[in-house]
């Protein structure tokens, strides 16, 4: 049996841990330490990508492996499992971490951080990454889970409270720690509660025991697990308790990691719970009931999260709330997929579309949300503020960041041909096409669409009030300029990935096909069949979804759309020039005001005033806005 992937996994983790020990020694030389940290995470990313390539290129799910660690007082057994599904998460986590580490080199030079030692930062960063990687590879809810979860949680706690002289930040970080420990306790309790399950019981055995347990205990175990992972993912109402506070106070690259990849470990846990931990012997109705509950939570999360995000005036809080909203889409899709996997075989194809939507949105959101946090970080780096009421007019001053932020903002809004579009299309399409067979999901689809209009509003505001419009010239005395190349490069990389995700969704659909082929469990058994897979076809132009009779009923073809838009743009350009009009620049007409200044400008907190009042009941209101 080939265990080489598990050896590589240990190598990767050890690399990160070694970096955690060595890099802090160099912390006095800030840039050197940053570079070393980057090199270590990059090396680890290469190792993990190698594992993923091997796993995804295989013909079936690799065997599981029990890692025995000999300690002074005895041996510790940790069941590990790397299948296609964990492989994708590993690549995602490690590569975003490497890109962000590069960004850290210069970002940690920010004026505000000058008097902070970077020792703890460079200790915690690799440990945090190692913890996340471990979390998506351990196969139990007890021993291995505890080690991975604690590495991730405690390291990220110290990263969040990096700016420890600010009381608000420390309080937010403390809250984060307490809630994450509660989540840990919930999952751990679930893992130990079942008769026959002890420390180190792998997931498939838990599933067997769960099938034999009575209904009450079963429900309790599943509820606790979903609550634990849901807390991490940012599920309503648990996400609101910690997520906006923690994400908005951490240094921006850390926020990017928290929002871009750490939340996804919660999603990972939810998917494992719903599709791997649920025994096949469970009555079909009970399974569908779980799917429905999760979908309802998802729809509430996406609606509430996004409408709260719309109200924010702090750029990072806005992004954080919006993360809750986007995670809601994923939770909705996961719940819908679970529901559709019931007895009715006609819905199985829709389950495929829904889980594909979840999978794509996990990947897309990781990239564009990291990108948005890095852009806001750059703005904060150069202007010293993230308050949208004070920003404005940065397009002319930092054009590269502005264009990159524009790409990320249209991606998150789901504008056709950009990366959020295909994933939202798959999620909304899978809910709408269920029609009468699963009526309530149609309503969920409508709510999801309303919400994407709100997402659009949110990001129009963020972008408009940061990069276009006016304002920064009155509020910032410093010389505002574009950030250094070291900070631009990682953003350019992520922006390129974001564009590829948008224009070539078929690549990621093909990847998803490999994930199904190299994983076990109900998803592969039901959806991996040729009949179901046939409903989803992909080609160079995009993805289309066919009904049972073979005719396509929904399609997302970004390349065609972008071609159409380009031709139309050229036509519009021709029309603009057709009259031979002359061009001239002139100052803004201020309708009687002598000068434009801070007293007579329209602030971010004024925008959507009537709508914000209308949505007051959704919470997350900002005082004075």
């Amino acid at each position, binding site marked *: 049996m080939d265990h080489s992937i598990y050896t590589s996994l240990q190598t990767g983790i050890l690399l990160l841990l070694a970096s955690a020990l060595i890099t802090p020694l160099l912390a006095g030389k800030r840039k050197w330490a940053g570079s070393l940290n980057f090199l270590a995470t990059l090396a680890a990313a290469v190792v993990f990508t190698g594992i993923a390539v091997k796993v995804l290129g295989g013909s079936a799910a690799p065997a599981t492996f029990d890692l025995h660690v000999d300690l002074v007082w005895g041996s510790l057994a940790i069941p590990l499992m790397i299948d296609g599904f964990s492989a994708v998460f590993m690549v995602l986590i490690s590569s975003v971490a490497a890109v962000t580490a590069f960004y850290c080199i210069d970002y940690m030079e920010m004026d505000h951080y000058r008097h902070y030692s970077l020792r703890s930062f460079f200790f915690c960063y690799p440990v945090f990454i190692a913890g996340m990687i471990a979390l998506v590879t351990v196969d139990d809810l007890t021993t291995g889970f505890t080690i991975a979860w604690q590495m991730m949680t405690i390291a990220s706690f110290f990263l969040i409270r990096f700016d420890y002289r600010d009381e608000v930040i420390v309080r937010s970080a403390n809250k984060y720690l307490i809630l994450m420990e509660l989540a840990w306790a919930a999952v751990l309790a679930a893992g130990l509660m079942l008769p026959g399950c002890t420390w180190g019981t792998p997931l498939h055995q838990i599933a067997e025991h769960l099938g034999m347990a009575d209904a009450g205990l079963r429900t309790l175990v599943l509820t606790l697990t979903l609550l634990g992972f849901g807390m991490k993912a940012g599920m309503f109402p648990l996400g609101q308790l910690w997520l906006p506070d923690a994400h908005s106070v951490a240094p921006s690259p850390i926020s990017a990691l928290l929002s871009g990849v750490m939340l996804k470990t919660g999603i990972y846990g939810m998917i494992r719970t719903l599709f791997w931990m649920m025994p096949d012997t469970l009555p079909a109705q009970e399974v569908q009931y779980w799917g429905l509950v999760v979908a309802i939570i998802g729809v509430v999360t996406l609606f509430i999260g996004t409408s709260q995000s719309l109200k924010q005036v702090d750029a990072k809080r806005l992004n954080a709330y919006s993360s809750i909203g986007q995670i809601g889409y994923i939770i909705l899709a996961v719940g819908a997929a679970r529901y559709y996997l019931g007895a009715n075989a006609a819905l199985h194809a829709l389950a495929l579309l829904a889980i594909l939507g979840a999978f794509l949105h996990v990947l897309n959101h990781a990239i564009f949300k990291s990108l948005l946090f890095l852009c806001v970080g750059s703005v904060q780096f150069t202007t010293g503020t993230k308050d949208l009421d004070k920003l404005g007019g940065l397009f002319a001053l930092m054009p590269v960041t502005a264009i990159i932020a524009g790409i990320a903002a249209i991606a998150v809004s789901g504008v056709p041909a950009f990366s959020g579009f295909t994933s939202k299309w798959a999620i909304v399409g899978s809910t709408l096409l269920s029609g009468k067979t699963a009526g309530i999901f149609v309503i969920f689809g409508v709510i999801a669409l309303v919400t994407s*209009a709100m997402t659009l509003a949110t990001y129009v505001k963020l972008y408009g009030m940061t990069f276009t419009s006016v304002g920064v010239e009155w509020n910032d005395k410093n010389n505002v300029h574009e950030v250094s190349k070291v900070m631009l490069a990682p953003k350019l990389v992520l922006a390129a990935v974001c564009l590829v995700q948008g224009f070539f969704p078929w690549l990621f659909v093909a990847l998803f096909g490999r994930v199904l082929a190299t994983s076990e469990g109900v998803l592969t058994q039901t959806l991996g069949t040729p009949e179901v897979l046939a409903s989803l076809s992909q080609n160079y132009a995009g993805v289309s979804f066919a009904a049972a009779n073979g005719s396509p009923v929904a399609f997302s073809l970004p390349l065609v759309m972008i071609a159409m838009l380009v031709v139309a743009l050229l036509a519009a350009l021709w029309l603009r020039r057709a009259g031979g009009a002359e061009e001239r620049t002139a100052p803004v007409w201020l309708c009687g005001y002598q000068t434009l200044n801070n007293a007579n400008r329209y602030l971010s907190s004024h925008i959507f005033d009537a709508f914000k009042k209308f949505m007051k009941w959704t919470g997350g209101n900002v005082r004075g806005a």
Partner: protein
Amino acid sequence: MSQFTEIAIGIAQVFGNLLLFLVIAPFLDGVVRRVMARVQSRQGPPLAQSYYDVLKLLGKENIDSAGILPFRLAPLVAFASILCVIAILPVAGRATALTPYADAISLVYLLTLGGVAVLLGAFASKNIYALIGASREMTTMIMVEPILFMVLLLGVLKTGSLDLTAVIYGTPMAAFGVPGVVMIAVSLFGLQAFVARQPFDIAEAEQELLGGPFIEYSGPNYALFKYYMMLKQMFYAYLPIAMFVPLLGSGFYLVDLALQMVLTVVVFLLIGLLSATHPRYRIDQAIRYFGVLFVIALAAIGAAVIF
């Protein structure tokens, strides 16, 4: 019919659609202006006035007050997005060559792209009035787009497909039942908001916001925005006709098309009449109005799902 002829007809259809909308939209705008004037006991401009406006603006000086790319890009994107919408629209029951490449969800997102472009231009223009207008425009969009989508959704539910031809023409009138009747009422009550006319011209609001999002635009840029608004107006007026008025089924494309166009003109007469007789709502009143409309539409969808 050979495959080649089919493709050729499909492509001709794309250009036919564009030509139809580009030529007729300013005329329909003229109809509204004339009707409004007559109701207010004025003579009113000639029916061709909107053509003159666009042509004249195309030759006027193009003043750039922002000096950044988004300001110059916005009118182009707005105009391009509405051209794409028209190109994929199956007019009079016939799919164009591009219809098979976009479904109902794509259509709605393309429509929002136009709105985004307007907002982008407004935000870029550094003018406080433009920002107020943009804020109102976006608020209206959040509330109105879903209502439009729910009108289309009725077709999705009946045919089980998101393909545009199926969504718009796939259901006979009678099969819509009560939810269909409710949706017709909803589209009528939402009509003025879809076409951004009084009482819902809150974003432009000439008397208070001096054109809102477009205040800093002049010359060809403004012409593009104006043309965009007219095309969008025609699209929104045409859609309920296409959706709910059955095709004659005469077998003649041109007869079907002519009927649809006559009905669209009737809709525009209605738009003019409503615009002339209704004072503008405040934005908070409008939100409540849309909220009620939204709930009714959602109830109709719920009924369509259950029964």
